[in-house]
């Protein structure tokens, strides 16, 4: 029953994903497609935290650091190389190495959860401050000006591999982003079903026990932290292709937003944060246009998001996925006898990091 439901879930995600991938370009106008590309890029960012916080118990408050590094590495490398394929590869590689270094010091230093959050947040804010003040020629890297507060508006768009100068159209960037989101989602699913993934979840449940069984917890955490960093970098690379890179990529609102997506969507699931991210993006956009309507000028999107977060933390701690499974169970309960309370699947538990 449980297995059937999970297969059904995978099929639904795949169908919806493919539907968006092929349906939207045929129906929507270009500006909408670009918006949807940004949402999908952010969804990969949400996925990165969903994986490392929800399944490994690592509350990284600074996924924005890898997101921004991915974007900047891509922009700088693409400008210098004059073609984008190797720049894109570098944009994943460099932040992953950075995640490895940062993770090494944190996990081998036995930094506990709260401090880990503080350190990762601080790192992203240091990068924010640093990039913000890089105006002027002394901050050019090769041919690429870092541009300080303004970022790099001339961020090159991806070209087809092996054909420098032959840029992808916005529709192609959209397909690429949604396609990579789907691949990333199912790759995470598969990863969690492997021996590595199962042991990772066990480590989240009890680190001491995992150690006593002979697992080197530090190695496992470092590995998943690097995967999370790589995903965030991929998100930054795709974001750079639908907007352009600027220091806000490293900023506190971005870091905070990722956590809000995960909490509202449901910690300990992959689909929850993904859905949470897209819903929140749509909502922010709608609220942004709403305050241009007469009489609604007082509506501030950030205020609404804040209230929403408080409501979810207090009333719906398991997020949207928790709500959905409860509703599903109640529906199933109408058909059959109510299932015992003990049958709560692991994925729905809120881990306490």
């Amino acid at each position, binding site marked *: 029953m449980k297995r059937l439901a999970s297969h059904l879930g995978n099929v639904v995600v795949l169908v919806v994903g493919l539907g968006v991938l092929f349906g939207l370009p045929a129906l929507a106008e270009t500006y909408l497609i670009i918006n949807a590309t940004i949402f999908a890029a952010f969804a990969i960012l949400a996925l990165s935290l969903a994986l490392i916080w929800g399944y490994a118990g690592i509350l990284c408050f600074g996924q924005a650091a890898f997101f921004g590094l991915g974007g900047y590495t891509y922009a700088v490398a693409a400008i210098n190389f004059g073609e984008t394929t190797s720049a894109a590869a570098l944009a994943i590689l460099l932040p992953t190495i950075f995640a490895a270094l940062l993770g090494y010091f944190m996990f081998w230093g036995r930094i506990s959860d709260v401090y880990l959050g503080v350190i990762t947040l601080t790192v992203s804010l240091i990068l924010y401050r640093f990039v913000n003040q890089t105006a002027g020629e002394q901050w050019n890297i090769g041919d690429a000006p870092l541009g300080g507060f303004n970022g790099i508006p001339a961020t090159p768009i991806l070209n087809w591999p092996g054909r420098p100068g032959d840029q992808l159209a916005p529709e192609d960037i959209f397909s690429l982003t949604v396609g990579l989101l789907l691949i990333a989602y199912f790759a995470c699913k598969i990863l969690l079903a492997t021996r590595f993934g199962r*042991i990772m*979840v066990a480590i989240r*449940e009890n680190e*001491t026990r995992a*150690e*006593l*069984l*002979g697992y080197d917890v530090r190695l496992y955490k470092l590995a998943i932290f690097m995967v999370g960093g790589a995903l965030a970098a991929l998100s930054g690379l795709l974001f750079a292709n639908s907007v352009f890179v600027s220091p806000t990529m490293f900023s506190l609102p971005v870091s905070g937003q990722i956590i809000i997506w995960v909490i509202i969507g449901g910690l300990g699931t992959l689909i929850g944060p993904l859905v949470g991210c897209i819903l929140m993006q749509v909502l922010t956009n709608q609220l942004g246009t709403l305050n241009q309507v007469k009489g609604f000028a007082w509506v501030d999107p950030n205020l609404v998001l804040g209230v929403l977060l408080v409501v979810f933390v207090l009333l719906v701690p398991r997020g949207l996925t928790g709500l959905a499974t409860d509703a599903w169970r109640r529906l199933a309960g109408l058909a059959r006898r109510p299932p015992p309370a*003990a049958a709560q699947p*692991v994925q729905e538990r809120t881990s306490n990091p």
Partner: protein
Amino acid sequence: MSEPLLEARGLTMRFGGVVAVDRVDFALQEAELRCVIGPNGAGKSTFFKCLTGQLRPSAGDVLFRGTPIAGIGSHAIARLGVGIKTQVPNVFDGLSARDNVWTAAARVAPGRIAERRTDQAMERVGITGIAGRIVGQLAHGQRQLVELAMVIAPEPDLILLDEPAAGMTDEEVDRLVDLIRELNQRHALVVVEHDMQFIRRIARTVTVFHQGAVLIEGDVARILTDERVRDVYLGKQAA
């Protein structure tokens, strides 16, 4: 006598000014079953944590088959073939009982073999019936049994148990006693316990801790009638 399986030499653990374990010498032979007893605060658990790598001793050595293991970390000690059960049950609360035991078996065996070892360990401990239950929702005694299954699933050469009988029903204790006897046919065991009833049922050689040091060591019948041991347990100062 051959080289001991596990040996402590002058093991000392200080916390600030408090000496919790004071120059303890301890040797365990292959396939031996040793009980470590002592009143609360005697230093048993600190001694145990030094053996299992949870604490790095202030001074002295711990040797496993002649290899120094003091301070190398729990996971490295476990990899040498040491199964450890802590005083407070350490289990994976959010996982099913079977997934708990599988995590233990999967460290030493691949794929199918891990699955088979998981089932065997659960059968030996007698928890096959609760395989699908989430461990966080089990009774304390059952959680202890799940942890025990995790300890034996990798087939360690040495098993260290800290207060294994705590919180168990009489029936579960009976099963534990049988299990420890059965385990001892193939594995060496160190059992730290302060329940004397339980000790009487399983012990052959007993080490008594008092105020951080070894008070006396020897055959169980002799120890339990020893004047000093009685005084210690009744709270009188040993002479």
